[in-house]
C-alpha cells in the first residue's frame, strides 16, 4: 500500500510542474477563458462522484451520491459550454483568422 502511495505522490508532483508550465505564457486576453476551461477540467470529480454513487445502498449514500453527481455534472457541462461560448466570440475576428495558418497575429 505504501508503494502505491509513493506512485500517487509522484503523479501529483509531476502534475504540479506540468500545470505551472502549461500556463506560464498565457496572454491577458485569455485569462478568463483559461480560468473557465480549467474550471471545467476539475469537473473530473464527476468520475469520483460516479464511483461512490454507483454502489450506493443506504438512503444517506443515495442522497450524497445523487447530489454529488448532479453538482459535478453541472461543473463539467456548464464549464465546457460557457468556455466555448467565450472563445466562439473571438472566432472569425482574431482567432479564427489565424486558424488556417494564415500569417502572424498583428
Amino acid at each position: 500500500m505504501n508503494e502505491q502511495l509513493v506512485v500517487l505522490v509522484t503523479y501529483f508532483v509531476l502534475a504540479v510542474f506540468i500545470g505551472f508550465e502549461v500556463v506560464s505564457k498565457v496572454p491577458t486576453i485569455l485569462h478568463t477563458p483559461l480560468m473557465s476551461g480549467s474550471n471545467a477540467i476539475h469537473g473530473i470529480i464527476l468520475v469520483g462522484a460516479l464511483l461512490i454513487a454507483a454502489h450506493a445502498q443506504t438512503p444517506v449514500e443515495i442522497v450524497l451520491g445523487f447530489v454529488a453527481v448532479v453538482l459535478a455534472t453541472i461543473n463539467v457541462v456548464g464549464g465546457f459550454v460557457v468556455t466555448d461560448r467565450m472563445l466562439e466570440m473571438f472566432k472569425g475576428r482574431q482567432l479564427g483568422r489565424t486558424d488556417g495558418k494564415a500569417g502572424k497575429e498583428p
Partner: protein
Amino acid sequence: MTIATALVYLLAAILFILGLLFLSSPRAARYGNWIAAGGMVLAVGWTGVVLYRSFTSAGLAICVSGVVIGGVAGTVAARKVKMTAMPQMVALFNGVGGGAAALVAVAELLKGAGSHSELQTGLPVVFAIIIGSISFAGSIIAFAKLQELMTGTPITYPGQHVVNAALALAILAVAGVLLAMTGSVVILAVLLILVLVLGVTFVLPIGGADMPVVISLLNACTGLAVAASGFVLDNFALIVAGTLVGASGTLLTKLMSDAMGRRLSTVLFGAVGQVQQAGASTGVKGRATRTGTADDIGMLLAYSNFVIIVPGYGLAVAQAQHVLRELVDLLEQRGVEVAYAIHPVAGRMPGHMNVLLAEAHVPYEQLKEMDEINDEFKRADVALVVGANDVVNPAARNSPGSDIYGMPILNADQARNVVFLKRSMRPGFAGIDNELFYDPRTIMLFGDAKESLARLVAAVKAA
C-alpha cells in the same frame, strides 16, 4: 485498476494537458477547450463502462438521473447566461465542483465509519472536505457579490482577522479530532459548519473589483480538493486533472493580480481591519462637475483628429457595444482616427472586454492594450470613457491611501478632453470617488450607456 482503465485515464490526462496548453494560446484556444472536453468524455464514459456490471439498482438510477439533470441544468445555465454575467457563472460552476469534491470525501468517510482507517486515506479525506467546502461557500458569496444579490463593497468589522484566524485554528483542531475518531458524524457536522462559515467570512471582506482573483484562487482550491479525492479513491485521473488545475490555477491567480497591479496578499487580506475607508477621496466630495449635452459632445467628437475610447463594465451592462461600434464607424467615415484602450481588467475579468467587443465585431487591430496605448493619450483630442471609472482613476497613481493605489491605469487624464458616459455619479466597482470627474477638462454625460451613445450617433450625423 485494470490496465485498460489506466491507459484510458492516461490518454485523458494527456488530453487535459494539451487542452490547457492550447487554451493558453490565442490561435488554438477553442480547440484546446474541445480537446479537454474530449478527455472528459473519455474518462467519464470509460468509468461508466467499467462500473456497468457493478451498479446497484439505486446506484444506476441516481447516476443516470444525476447526469441528465446536471447536464441539462449546466447546459441551460451556460447557454442562457449573458456575456456580461460570465464571471459569476464561472464562480458558480466552480462552487458546485468544490461541493461535489467535498461530498465525495464525506461519502468515503462515512463508508469507513467505525473502522480504523489509516492516516494516508484519512488525511486526504479531511483535506478534500475542508478545501472543497471552503471553495463551495466562497464561490457562492463571490457569485452573490457579482450578481449584485449583495453589496459588492468589502464587508468588514473589527477583529475580523482574529475571527478568521480563530476559525481556521478551530477547523484544524476539529479535523484532528475527526482523524483520531474516524467517521464520527457529530464531529463531521461540526467540521462542515465551521469550514462553510470560514468560506463565507473569507470572501466577505473582499471587494467586487478583486473578485476575479478570488474566483481564480477558489478554482485552484477546487482543483486541489479534487486531487485529494483522487488520493482517497486511488484514482489516477482525479489526481492528475485536479493537480493540473490546482497548479495552473495558482499561477493564473498570480498572473491576474499582477495584471491588476495588486499584490495577492493585499487582495486577500487587505480589506480586513480597514478603517480609513475612502479617506483619500473625501477631499473631492461636493465639488462641481461639468455636464454636457449630447450635441456638444457629438460636435467635439466629429471635429477631433484622434479619439481614444475607454470601454468599461457600464458599456457591457448596457449591451452598448454595437452602438459604440456604429459611432466609431461614423467617426472613421469623417476621417477621425479611433482606437480602443483596453485595460487588462476592463469589464470584470481580465480579457472580459475583448470578448464583449469581439462579439460586436470590432476589428482586433483597433483594440490596444494598456502598455501600447498609454503614451498615445497625450496626442488624443478626446478620451471617451464609456461606463468605466476605476481604470482611469488618477487616485491609483496619486493617493497612497486609496484602495486602488498602485493599480496600473489608462492615462485618460492626459487627453485634451475627457468625456465620461456614466449612469450616475455613483462611484465605480471599487467604491472609490474619481477626482477626474471634477477636472475642468472633463465633460459628463449621464444616462444609460446605450442611450447616450445613440444620442451621440445622432449628434455626429448632424454635425
